[in-house]
């Protein structure tokens, strides 16, 4: 702990307290929404208007500005869900459990977006909506993992027990993450190889790269907004009998 400043430690301690989290996120929300909109508007302006058409794919490639950020988010959120799940499993921190399960729905949404935008891009470019290649199949398995987590959580009445079960399922599923990432290198796929994450020499022009990065950042902020919305709901449901929720409700209805 000696490496982390005292104020940071205090911040996380306070954030782990449900009433504090609830009040803090309420004040934080407008800022997140403003930043998200600024990033999205500039990203879409750059991607849909300023960037030139692709020399091979014409304008169809513009799906990239939602397809790739969504696919990245589907992996990123899964890792967050697994890590917060593990934290909840080990230290029994209620808020970690809530962030973990709240992430599942957002992650599933981004996986779904990655899949159908890919399909809508594949049809004009590959001539097919779907192929069972390694990238597409492993991403579909990711969707099923998310749905499995959501279903399992809903099926167990005691939510603290449910969180334990879900965390274990999420941790086992982590094995799928590197498989998705490296699928285009390990197997011969119809899906193209990496163009951006070759950091030394990305094979994408800067006028296309900047809007892509803006959209990636925008989706990160979207995730924060969406996960906070879900977490606030889940927190109230779980803490319905605690004093801070009761007194907040009397305060609001009075």
């Amino acid at each position, binding site marked *: 702990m000696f490496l982390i400043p005292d104020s940071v430690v205090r911040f996380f301690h306070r954030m782990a307290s449900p009433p504090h989290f609830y009040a803090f996120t309420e004040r934080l929300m407008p800022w997140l929404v403003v930043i998200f909109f600024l990033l999205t508007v500039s990203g879409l302006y750059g991607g*849909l208007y300023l960037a030139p058409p692709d020399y091979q794919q014409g304008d*169809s490639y513009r799906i990239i500005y939602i397809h790739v950020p969504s696919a990245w988010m589907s992996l990123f959120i899964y890792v967050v869900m697994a890590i917060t799940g593990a934290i909840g499993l080990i230290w029994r921190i209620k808020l970690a459990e809530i962030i973990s399960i709240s992430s599942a*729905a957002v992650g599933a949404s981004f996986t779904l977006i990655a899949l159908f*935008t890919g399909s809508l891009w594949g049809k004009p470019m590959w001539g097919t909506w779907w192929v069972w290649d390694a990238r597409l199949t492993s991403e579909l398995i990711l969707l099923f993992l998310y749905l499995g987590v959501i279903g399992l959580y809903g099926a167990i009445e005691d939510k603290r027990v449910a969180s334990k079960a879900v965390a274990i399922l999420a941790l086992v599923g982590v094995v799928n993450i590197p498989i998705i990432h490296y699928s285009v290198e390990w197997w011969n796929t119809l899906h193209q190889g990496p163009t951006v994450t070759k950091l030394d020499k990305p094979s994408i022009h800067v006028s296309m790269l900047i809007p892509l990065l803006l959209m990636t950042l925008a989706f990160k902020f979207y995730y924060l907004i969406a996960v906070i919305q879900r977490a*606030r709901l889940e927190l*109230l449901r779980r803490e319905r009998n605690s004093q801070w929720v009761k007194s907040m409700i*009397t305060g*609001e209805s009075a």
Partner: protein
Amino acid sequence: MTLQAFFAMGGYAFYVWTAYGLTLMVLVLNVLLPLIQRKQFLRQQALKQKRST
């Protein structure tokens, strides 16, 4: 570039705008549903408290 050319997307309008439209729908629903459910939950709990007192 004219507005018409922009929306035509070089002949790929259907694919591009469907992708963007569906994405927008999923993202909006994802924030709106928990927001509505939370308001509902707060109303229900408030009613319950009134009844019990």
